């Protein structure tokens, strides 16, 4: 069997008619339909990614059961009430400036405080954005950060996106209360969600986005998503994305931030759920003095597979990037982190840092960690580090010699392992949420032991 026929076999069957139906059901303007159709041509032409490509050679997407996961979810009548309260309540601070919730690819709740509306802040779903903010929306949607031609999944997304959140903070506006959105799924099948954030010159905002789905669904679901974060000159975005899909979920996501001169991005990624995760998360430091920080925390158990594929691109002088991913693994979980710092010839005086540290808690789990540097400028400071460790006997004995049970000793050591990444998360409740996830996964281990 040639690769091409194999590719044909495993790509989900999605037709041009489906694009037209989807667009019509949303009453989309013709430019949007045309954009979708152009993307569909691309989708139809492109092969599924080669398993020999660097991005995919450790990441076997052929385990996705497209016959269950590959048809667009539609006709779900579930409303906002199916979403657990904890995913709707404010997580950062005690109040939120706005909340948007989608269930099974359909927006079920959308609110924004009057104060923020009065400031000219836009926080709405994509259908509203296309209808009421066409110029802004059209200017930024898949034109600047992520393009439909990145690969077949990006093209699939561009042709078939089901739902999205558009956040726009105009020039100079500082949004005090954080904004919050959640994408929730209850069934098998395919949804394609999008997060598009535009923070203009000198503006500031904190935004929390959550992914979650109902447990107990046997058949595979797939989320083929995009995240675009555009940070203007001297603007500041703090973006927290927490993922806790159920065990049937496949998540393939293209995410990219672009930071203009003296802009600042603090990007926090928490990956806990899903059976298969491939997440491209990239920062483009486009303007002089731009700063991008990415902090990733993951814990893979059972037979989960997580692949975080990061990029820090220094495209201008005096730019700074700082990436730390820390992950734990147990049972038969597999994780990949591959990261690249790229410095263009003109990007002198840049400072790039990347580190990935893994703690492997079982014999059958396996972590791959592949750091990379591509430096074309000669006056830069770039450092990277990758480690894969296991629980050591001596610290456990030391803690036990002070009276802690083995289980408590292990728990404390794992908490200690994650402490440096927690220190980078300036939101107490986010830390508490992630800590609870970690403890829950460790607890499951203790019960089996």
């Amino acid at each position, binding site marked *: 069997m040639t690769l091409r026929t194999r590719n044909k076999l495993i790509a989900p069957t999605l037709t041009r008619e489906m694009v037209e139906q989807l667009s019509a059901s949303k009453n989309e303007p013709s430019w949007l339909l045309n954009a979708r159709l152009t993307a569909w041509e691309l989708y139809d032409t492109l092969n599924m990614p080669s398993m020999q490509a660097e991005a995919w050679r450790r990441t076997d997407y052929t385990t996705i059961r497209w016959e269950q996961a590959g048809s667009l979810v539609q006709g779900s009548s579930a409303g906002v009430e199916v979403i657990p309260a904890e995913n709707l309540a404010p997580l950062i601070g005690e109040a939120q400036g706005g909340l948007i919730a989608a269930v099974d690819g359909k927006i079920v709740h959308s609110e924004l405080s009057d104060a923020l509306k009065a400031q000219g802040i836009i926080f709405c779903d994509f259908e509203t954005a296309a209808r009421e903010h066409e110029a802004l929306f059209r200017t930024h949607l898949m034109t600047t950060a992520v393009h439909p031609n990145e690969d077949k999944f990006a093209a699939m997304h561009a042709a078939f996106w089901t739902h999205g959140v558009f956040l726009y903070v105009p020039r100079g506006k500082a949004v005090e209360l954080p904004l919050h959105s959640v994408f929730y799924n209850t069934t098998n099948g395919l949804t394609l969600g999008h997060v598009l954030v535009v923070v203009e010159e000198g503006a500031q905002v904190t935004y929390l986005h959550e992914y979650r789905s109902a447990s107990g669904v046997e058949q595979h679901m797939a989320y083929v998503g995009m995240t675009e974060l555009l940070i203007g000159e001297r603007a500041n975005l703090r973006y927290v994305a927490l993922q806790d899909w159920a065990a049937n979920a496949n998540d393939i996501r293209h995410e990219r931030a672009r930071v203009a001169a003296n802009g600042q991005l603090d990007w926090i990624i928490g990956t806990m759920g899903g059976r298969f995760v491939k997440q491209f998360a990239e920062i483009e430091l486009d303007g002089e003095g731009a700063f991008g920080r990415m902090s990733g925390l993951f814990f893979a158990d059972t037979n989960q597979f997580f692949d975080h594929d990061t990029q820090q691109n220094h495209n201008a002088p005096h730019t700074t990037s700082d990436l730390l991913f820390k992950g734990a693994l147990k049972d038969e979980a597999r994780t990949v982190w591959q990261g690249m710092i790229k410095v263009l010839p003109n990007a002198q005086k840049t400072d790039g840092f990347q580190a990935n540290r893994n703690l492997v808690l079982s014999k059958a789990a396996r972590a791959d960690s592949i750091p990379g540097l591509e430096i074309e400028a000669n006056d830069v400071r770039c450092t990277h580090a990758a480690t894969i460790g296991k629980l050591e006997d001596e*610290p456990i004995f*030391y803690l*036990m*010699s002070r009276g802690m*049970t083995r289980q408590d000793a292990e728990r404390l050591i794992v908490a200690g392992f994650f*402490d440096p990444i927690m220190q980078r998360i300036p939101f107490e409740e986010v830390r508490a949420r992630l800590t609870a996830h970690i403890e829950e996964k460790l607890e499951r281990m203790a019960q089996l032991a």
Partner: protein
Amino acid sequence: MTAVLEIRNLHVSIDGKPILKGVNLTVRQGEVHALMGRNGSGKSTLAYALMGHPAYTVDEGQIIFDGQDLLEMEADARSRAGLFLAFQYPVAVPGVTLANFLRASINARRKEANPEDKGISIQEFRRLLMGKMQSLKVDPSFAGRYLNEGFSGGEKKRAEILQLATLEPKIAVLDETDSGLDIDALRVVADGINNLIGPNLGVLVITHYEQFLNYIKPQFVHVMYDGRVVEEGGFDLAEKIQAQGYDWVAEKYATA
């Protein structure tokens, strides 16, 4: 009731190699003992075996502590029963602050006493820790540092004594707590230990270096040679070793 640590005919091996070959030693709560001997005589092996390190295999003999058979217990249970080991080389535990670690240790004890216990309150713990730190002349910033990570030799030893002070064991084994300390640090650590010594604490000080014993005056001195306790006496035995070294011990007990 006075707790007693009773070591009877203890044989211990590492990877099949016999190290302890029949140790007999008894330490009572309130007593201060010194265990001396050259490097390699088995002193640290005894310390690890007492605490239950899994790499040390007990081939024969008994360790009875406070009426319980320690050999049936894992390290954590031994600790909760009231035994303490100040490590010669305490390991670093990255990401775990000294304060968090001590709090977890205290809570482990409370939970054993009462399974419903919710743990020591933050205020109560802070008060307790600050008091102990003050009496040991330890800088309060110590509490927020990751356990033993980047600690100097003196800081590690002081942290061990701080743990001893906070956990209030019945019997403490101090494994070469004096090693690697300069004279000033030695005095600080010795003062700390002296402040803890009293009717509720029995101490077994392991050293191959008698200077420490000038600060901590042991009532009982034991000398190890080739995996056995071969000489026992009072403080005068330590003085004899200070004056004459260990050669006479080797000559007397060498099995050639």
